[in-house]
Each structure stands twice: as C-alpha cells, then as structure tokens.
C-alpha cells in the first residue's frame, strides 16, 4: 500500500502541482481547465477519482504540492470515498497541503448532518474548508455559472501558491494555522429545520 508522500520527490522549478480528488469527476475537469490558465507559474493539475493512486504512474508523477478533495454534499458516496482516500495519504500532507472543497452546499437535497460531518472532519484534520458552486445548482442566472469555477480557482490558487513555496515568507504550515477550519462547540446540537 503506497502512501502519497509529500517530500519523497524533488520540487519543480517555478511550478506547482495540485491533485484534485473527486469521486464523481465532474467538477474537477472544469476546475482543472481554469487552473491551468494561470500564467505566472506552471500549474500541473492531476485528477484522480480516489486514492491510492495507481502504481504505474509512480515514476512520472511529480511531487504533489496540494491535494484538494472535492466533496459533493448531495451524495454520500462522495463523502465516504473521501474518507477512505484520506487513509492513503501520508500524515505529512496534513500540515497545510490538504484542503477540502465542498460543492452543492446550498442544494436542498444535501442533508445538514453531512455538512456537519465534513466540517468536523476538516476541523479534526486542521485543514481549510472551501465552499464552491458548480454549475448544476445555479439555475437562475446564467451569469453565475462560470463564477463558481472562477472563485474556486482563485482560492485554490492562493493556497497552492503557498504550498508550492511561491509566496515568500509563507509556508503551507504557517498558512494552515491561519486558515484552519474550526467547529463551533454547539455543532452537536440539532439544527432548526
């Protein structure tokens, strides 16, 4: 069983490598297209459905600077697959090189307990939790649909730049202290429906 290790390879010059893990493989494609538009440095995006990653790409794969898990709140499978994938990640990644991205949080089909569970997961692992929109749930204004991807891209790029060392005087560990998601103590109480 191979764990994905953060420091087992040499870093790339002026580049950042990000791994998007999503069990449904819908949002990650549009996100990837938007991410590679960045021109200040080279962004290499690797897509995966879940971890562990297949062994045959082991040699050609560059060092992954940031692992972003995309969880769709309307599907339980997404959450469970993410939880299973977390076990295949070396603990060294959780010091600022992992982030969780949640989509469809506004959808009525998303149960609140799942959101709480994701929040608790992110808080226990001290990782940032981002909320994004993908195209499906926004039906009212067509202008909104590309913005969800743009916003997600911007925020991911911010974290990615720090994780790849491209921001002077900031390391991923330092940023994780500033962006860690916390869970308020009353999250166990039943919410009002």
């Amino acid at each position, binding site marked *: 069983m191979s764990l994905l290790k953060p420091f087992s390879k040499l870093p790339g*010059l*002026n580049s950042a490598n990000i791994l998007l893990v999503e069990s449904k493989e819908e949002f990650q494609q549009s996100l990837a297209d938007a991410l590679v538009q960045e021109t200040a440095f*080279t962004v290499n*995006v690797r897509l995966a459905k879940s971890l562990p990653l297949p062994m045959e790409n082991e040699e050609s794969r560059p060092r992954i600077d940031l692992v972003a898990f995309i969880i769709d709140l309307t599907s339980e499978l997404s959450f469970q697959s993410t939880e299973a994938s977390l076990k295949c990640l070396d603990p060294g990644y959780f010091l600022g090189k992992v982030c969780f991205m949640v989509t469809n949080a506004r959808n009525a089909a998303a149960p609140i307990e799942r959101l709480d569970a994701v929040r608790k997961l992110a808080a226990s692992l001290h990782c940032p939790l981002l909320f994004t929109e993908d195209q499906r749930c926004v039906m009212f204004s067509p202008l909104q649909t590309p913005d969800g991807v743009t916003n997600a891209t911007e925020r991911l790029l911010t974290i990615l730049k720090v994780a790849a060392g491209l921001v002077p005087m900031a390391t991923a560990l330092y940023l994780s202290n500033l962006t860690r998601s916390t869970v308020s103590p009353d999250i166990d109480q039943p919410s009002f429906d």
Partner: protein
Amino acid sequence: MDPSDNVGNLHHMVEAVAPSYGPAPDSSTGQKDAPPADMLRIKQQMSNQCFEMAVQLQAGKSKRSCSTSEAGRELSEYVNELDRVKTIHFNSTLTLHRMQMWHAIGEKLKRNDSEALALKAESNRCMDLCSRIKQLQQESRVFQDEITEIQKRRLEMKRLTHEKMKEMDELTSKAGHPDTEKYKAVLERGQANLEKYKKMTVMTQNVLRGILLACKVNWLDDPKLRDIAMTLEEFSISD
C-alpha cells in the same frame, strides 16, 4: 491493504493529467535567458521548499508528548511570536530599502551628469514645495487658533446669557412674592381679628337676646327695641 484490493479496484482508479493550455512561462530545465526577477523568484521558491523539508526533518527528530489543548495554546503563542517577528523583519526590510534608495540617489547626484541635474532640479522643486507646505500649515494653524479663540468667546457669551436669563426668571417670580408675603401676613392677622370681633359681637347679641327674653319685654311695640331685635337676627347664632 493487500494487492488484491488494488487489482480489484483498478478500474476505479484512473489518474489523468489535465493538458496545460496556457503558455509555459519557464521550462524547468535549461533556461538560458530567464530574466533575473524570475531567477530570484525561483530561488525564493526553492529556499521555501528547502525550509519546509528542514522543518519536516526537525519535527521528526524531537518528539515529545503533550496534550492537545496544551499544544493548541502553545501553538497560538508561537503564531503570535511569529507574527511579531515577521512584522519586525518587514519593517527592517523597508528601512533597508529606503536606505539603499537614498544611497543610490546620493551616488547619482555625486556623479553630476545630465540625469543628476534633472534629479537636482526635482529635489529643489520638492524642497520649495515642502517649504510652501510648511508655510501653509503654519498659517492654517494660526487660523485654527483664532477660530478656537472665537469659539471660546462665543461659549462664554452663551454661558453669561444663560446666567442672566436665569437671574431674570428668578426676579420675575420673586417680584410678586415679597408683597404677597406681607400681604398674606396682614391678611391673616386681619382675618383673625375679624373672627375675634365677630365672636364678640355674636356673644354680645346672644347676651342681649337673652336679656330681652328674660326681661319679658314686649319689643314688637316699641320701634327702637324692634329695630335692635331685627338686627340681632342678621348674625347667625354660633356657639
């Protein structure tokens, strides 16, 4: 997990590489004409990465056990300390840059070529503007003082006016007062006297009535007695 799981799940694990459409700014190997800014950036990135790896190694060496809450508290302390040091470093860097700038400007001026002349003209203009600014600031300060003075005087005036109004109110309310005081006293005394005399009169009348009755005088026939008896009826008989 054993390899059989891997084989079974292989069709689920597909890893793809997204093609990069954007122009690659720097290829990672063999850049001949990379501008110095990019080189500096890459150097900073590498130093950042090396720092992270060093931190990782360091963390592996010293292991001590402590509770999570204690670690959390210590962590916030360390982050504060880190912020403080970063601010100091940033300020020092700014100061250093300023000093370097001034040194460069000084060197340039010393060299005394065309650009230095332009620089000197600019700095002279700056000096003139600065002295003009100082002058204007002085004037505005004088004006401000005057304004403050006038405001103080106005406030004083207001206060005096207020006091005078209060005094006037007091006087108008008191003006009727002393007369009514004496008046009341006199009135009361007069009324007391009146009561006294009234009682005396009533008593005398009662006595006269009693005498008339006792003497069994026929006062109806005599006109003088009748008048006196009539007047007795005017006053009420009081105890």
